[in-house]
Structures are given as structure tokens and as C-alpha cells.
């Protein structure tokens, strides 16, 4: 009995010595829907004796609005790259310094000095991917590494195309299709963008989320969509292939951040460090089928994921990828009106 007590005390002391990272308690995570590996959460709760609650959001703006309103009770949020600077400038994030955590050495050097959080003082990589071309090759055998698939659709695919209803992703690909740069206000180019989208839209079937079931049922012949979903579509319809638009495509990375008014900041820090462990990062990817930013996690990934052509950008198309940054407010307003005009 005494022995047990002594060890207990020693453990508690050890915990204090190791820093304020005393576990036990709660952790409330606010993440995208269908994105958090239950296996990962289970392991974290068991290892650190923390009760984890995961709440879903469906868009960056929803998350931002809800957190800004206050009284949310969340500790961790997972915003996309282009939104992280907004969260930081609005003073919503805790400067948790993940770059000083023990497992930070595992972060792939490519994802350390990122534009939205140089040196990673606030955020840790969760998953990353891109928006590209998904084609059912039983219908169309030509070149698929181009945005022309949805902007100038080949006859075989016209009327069977789904485009993700995402203003920024669609405008990005179209602007790059005309050789423009993101956040540009070149009116001549943007006029072409608008006219092209209006024209192309008449050849689209839908602008909707969820492509996996519809590629499986062969309702869709092509899509402009995220690569992880493309991979899941291929698992249900072996004719599905993913193309990397050579004209330019948007990359995304969702990053884990701790909220400034978190009730359990210590547990949140534990979680940050936990997901930088390659074995744990692999769980994230195995579940949601996107790449993570942790070097060495491949060793723990499922075979299908490791070899998935959707998740490994071929060298020749690497330079065409660019992170979607948040445009200045006046540009954003202009893009919104253009988008409304296209969708009226």
C-alpha cells in the first residue's frame, strides 16, 4: 500500500517535473465532419486518460463565426491554411509553440516554414491535399491532367460533370486556366473567367458535395474535387482516375490549433504532440485518406494509401500546386460578386 502511494506520488512529481502537462480531464475538439479517426481518439484517451469530445463543422466560416461568438467550450480547432492567418490576427489562437514540443522533429521539413504560420508557432499539420480532376475512364480516355475537363469538357463527359460548390477552389482553377494569378484583379482576365464559367456550367450536371457514391453508381463521369474523395471513389469504381491540372490547382492543409480561451490547454498541447508521432499521424490518414505532414508516418499507413496515385503528386505537376491564401477583403468582395453572377 505504502509502495503504491509512493510510486503514485513519484509519478505525480515526475509529471510536474516534465512540465505542466498533467493529463486527466477533458478535451474538446472542433473539427471537420468525417475527418477525425475514432481509433486515434480512442488511443489518445487511453494513453492520457482524457475524455475526448469531437464536434463537427462544415466550413471554415462556420467555425470562425462560432468561435468568435464565444461560449463554445472548445479547446482545439482545425482551420485550413488560408484561414489560419485570420484566426491569428483575430487573436483567437493560443501561441502554443508546437515547434518546441518533443515530437516536432517528425514534421516533414516541407511543412515547417509555411506561409500561414512561419516556423509553426501556432499550428501542427493535420492533413493536406488538393482539388483536382476526377474522371471515369470508361467514358473518356484522353488527357486528364488539365482543368479543361470541367472548363472545356470533352463531348463524352459533357452533362456528367460535378464541380465542388467551393467559390475559392473553382475560381482558382479557372483563373490559372487563363494564366492569371490568385487574388488578381485583372479585369480583362476575370471577365474571361466569368464568361468561361457561365459557358462551362451549362455542361455540368451538378455542383454538389459527395462524389463517392455517385461515381460508384456511375451518375458522374467527371468531377473537380478533392483527391482523398477521388481515392475513395476509385475503391468503389475501379475506372476512376485522378488528374493534376497542369494549369494550376489549389492545395489545402488543415492544421491543428489551440484556442486562446481553451479550458484544457494542457490536454490540447498533449494532443498536438501526440499527433506528431508518426504512428498516430498514420491513423489520421488511414481514416480520412489524405496525406499528413509527418515524416515516417508512411510506414504505418495501409498499403492502399501508401501506393495511392491520388496522394502522390507526380514531380512534373508539383509546381502547379499552390496554397489558397485568403485574398484581401476588396478582392474577396469582387470574387463573391463574380461567383454570384455565375450562379444566378
Amino acid at each position: 500500500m505504502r509502495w503504491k502511494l509512493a510510486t503514485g506520488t513519484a509519478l505525480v512529481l515526475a509529471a510536474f517535473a516534465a512540465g505542466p502537462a498533467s493529463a486527466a480531464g477533458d478535451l474538446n475538439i472542433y473539427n471537420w465532419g468525417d475527418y477525425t479517426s475514432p481509433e486515434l481518439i480512442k488511443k489518445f484517451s487511453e494513453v492520457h486518460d482524457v475524455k475526448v469530445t469531437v464536434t463537427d463543422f462544415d466550413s471554415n466560416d462556420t467555425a470562425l463565426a462560432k468561435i468568435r461568438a464565444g461560449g463554445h467550450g472548445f479547446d482545439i480547432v482545425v482551420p485550413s491554411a488560408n484561414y489560419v492567418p485570420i484566426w491569428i490576427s483575430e487573436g483567437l489562437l493560443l501561441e502554443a509553440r508546437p515547434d518546441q514540443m518533443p515530437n516536432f522533429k517528425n514534421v516533414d521539413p516541407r511543412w515547417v516554414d509555411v506561409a500561414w504560420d512561419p516556423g509553426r508557432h501556432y499550428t501542427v499539420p493535420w492533413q493536406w491535399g488538393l482539388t483536382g480532376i476526377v474522371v471515369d475512364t470508361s467514358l473518356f480516355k484522353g488527357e486528364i491532367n488539365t482543368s479543361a475537363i470541367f472548363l472545356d469538357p470533352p463531348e463524352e463527359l459533357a452533362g456528367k460533370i460535378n464541380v465542388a460548390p467551393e467559390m475559392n477552389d473553382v475560381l482558382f482553377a479557372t483563373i490559372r486556366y487563363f494564366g492569371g494569378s490568385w487574388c488578381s484583379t485583372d479585369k480583362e482576365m476575370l471577365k474571361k473567367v466569368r464568361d468561361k464559367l457561365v459557358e462551362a456550367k451549362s455542361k455540368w450536371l451538378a455542383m454538389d458535395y459527395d462524389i463517392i457514391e455517385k461515381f460508384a453508381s456511375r451518375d458522374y463521369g467527371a468531377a473537380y474535387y478533392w483527391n482523398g474523395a477521388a481515392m475513395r471513389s476509385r475503391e468503389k469504381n475501379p475506372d476512376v482516375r485522378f488528374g493534376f491540372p497542369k494549369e494550376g490547382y489549389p492545395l489545402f492543409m488543415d492544421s491543428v490549433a489551440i484556442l486562446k480561451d481553451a479550458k484544457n490547454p494542457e490536454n490540447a498541447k498533449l494532443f498536438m504532440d501526440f499527433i506528431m508521432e508518426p504512428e498516430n499521424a498514420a491513423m489520421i490518414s488511414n481514416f480520412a485518406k489524405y496525406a499528413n505532414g509527418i515524416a515516417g508516418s508512411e510506414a504505418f499507413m495501409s498499403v492502399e494509401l501508401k501506393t495511392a496515385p491520388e496522394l502522390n503528386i507526380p514531380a512534373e505537376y508539383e509546381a502547379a500546386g499552390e496554397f489558397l491564401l485568403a485574398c484581401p477583403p476588396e478582392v474577396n468582395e469582387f470574387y463573391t460578386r463574380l461567383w454570384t453572377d455565375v450562379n444566378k
Partner: protein
Amino acid sequence: MPSAAPHPAVRPRGARRGREIARRWLLSAPALLVILVAAVGPLFVMALYSVMAKGDFGDVRFGTFSSEGWFGVFFQRDIFDDTLTLADAHLTIFWRSVVLSLQTTLAALLLGVPTAYFIATRPARSREIWLFLITIPFWTNLLIRTFAIQEVIRNEGILNGALVGLGIVDRPVQIMFTDTAILIGMVYVYLPLMVLPVYASMEKIDFRLVEAGYDLYAGRLAVLRRIILPLARPGIVAGSILVFIPSLGAYVTPRVLGGGKNMMLGNLIELQFGPGRNWPLGAAISITLMAVVMLALLVYVRNATKGGQHG
């Protein structure tokens, strides 16, 4: 007030009545307070937000007033040559929503009135069963029901499977992602809201009047037009309102069944609060929508009740 002193006998009764009125107010105060806070409060917030300047990343800048939001509802500077024009994108979307809502209401009337008539003319006991059946769809979440409809009408779905299987068509009919799909979905979702109020007023009809009509040599159409419909009018008015208003703001059904290629008002408003980051404009569009609905209702109800008195 008459200057003459009130009759002595009246005074105590008047005082009692005063107390009675005060007590009624007191009793309804909690409900009134809830309505005031829960209904007028958010409206006030919306009105306030619509006249503020927009924040850079959503939200509004409090204390900085701006008419930009309201201006943007009706007018726009052309995005390319800066000339001032009517906001035709908004008007087009507005018009699409109104037309779809009218179609939905009309279809719900055509299907709902005969259904309500059928139920109202059943024996009392089986009426309860029919009503119960009408309410069953409410037990399931709207989104799930919408996805279920998608399963019925999509190309490889139940309906097309049956049509192709029976040899009626040789290729699946493209219903999914069309305006027809939206209409089917909306009518399905809102039909009970038409049937229930129409039934409620038809149930009260004294069917001896119908017999009397026949006795007086009225044809079936005349009976329907001169007796049944006028008596069911309150229900028809209520049902139409109950269907029309939510149709106008419908968001899930057009999105899921229509494929989201063309915006409805709900989507336009969502865009402003979402990636558009223009909350004042979103608030102003919402208020405009409400004002239009209110106006349409006033005209409709006034005309409908006037007609009722004539009948």
C-alpha cells in the same frame, strides 16, 4: 371620456373589469416576453447588422454605420465597367425562388385538397388513422427524407429502374439535378402542411349542405365550387401560407436534389455569411425577403377573407 360622472352602478363593475384586464395582461406577460425576446430580438440584431460596415473577415464593424449592405441588395456597380445597374443577379435568384414557391404551393393545393376531402369524408374512426399516416413523415429528419427521395429519382434509382425494367423508357430519365427534382422534393416535404389545415376546415363542413346542393340540381362541379371550396377556404388560406413561406427559404432540398447549380435565396444568403464574408448584405437580403413575404401575405389574406365574405 364623457364628462358626466359614471353611473354609480357601473363603477364597481368597471373597476372589476379593469382588474380583470390587468390580470389577463399579467397572465400573458411571460408568453409575450418570450415572443418579444425570441422573435423580435433576432430581427433587431439582423436589422442592426444590415446597417453596419462589413468586417474584413466576416462579422461587422460595430459602431461604423454603412448603407453598403442595403445598397448591395438592389444595386450593383457592374463588376467590369463600374456602371451602376440593378442587382440583376439578386433579382434573378429572388424570382427563381418565388416562382418555385408558387409552383410548390399550387401543386400542394392540387394534391392536398382532394386528400383532405377524402379524409374528411371517411368515418370518424378511420379518419384518425389517415391523419396519423399523414404525420408519419414528420418523424424523420428532413435531410434524411431528401436523400431518400434522391434514391428514388436518381438515374440508377427505384423509379428509373422500374421504368426501364418495364420497358416504358429505354434509357433512364434524368430527373435528379433538375428543377423538376426540386419541385418533387418540395411538394413531398410540404404537402402535410397543406393537408392538415385544409382537413381541419373540411371536417367542420356540414355535409347536409352538399346534399342540399345536389337536391337543388347543382352539378358536382358547382357543389365543389359553390359549397365545399368556400367552406374550406380558411384551411386553404392557412395551408397555402404554411407551404409558401418555408418554400421561399428552402435550402436543403434545392441543394441536394437540384445539384446546387443555380442558387436559391437561401444559398445566396448563406454565401454572404460564408465565403462572401459580407454579413451586412446577408442581413439586408434576409430582411428584404421577410418584408416581401409579409407584404404578399397581407395582400393574400385580405383578398382571401374578402372573397370568403362574398361566398
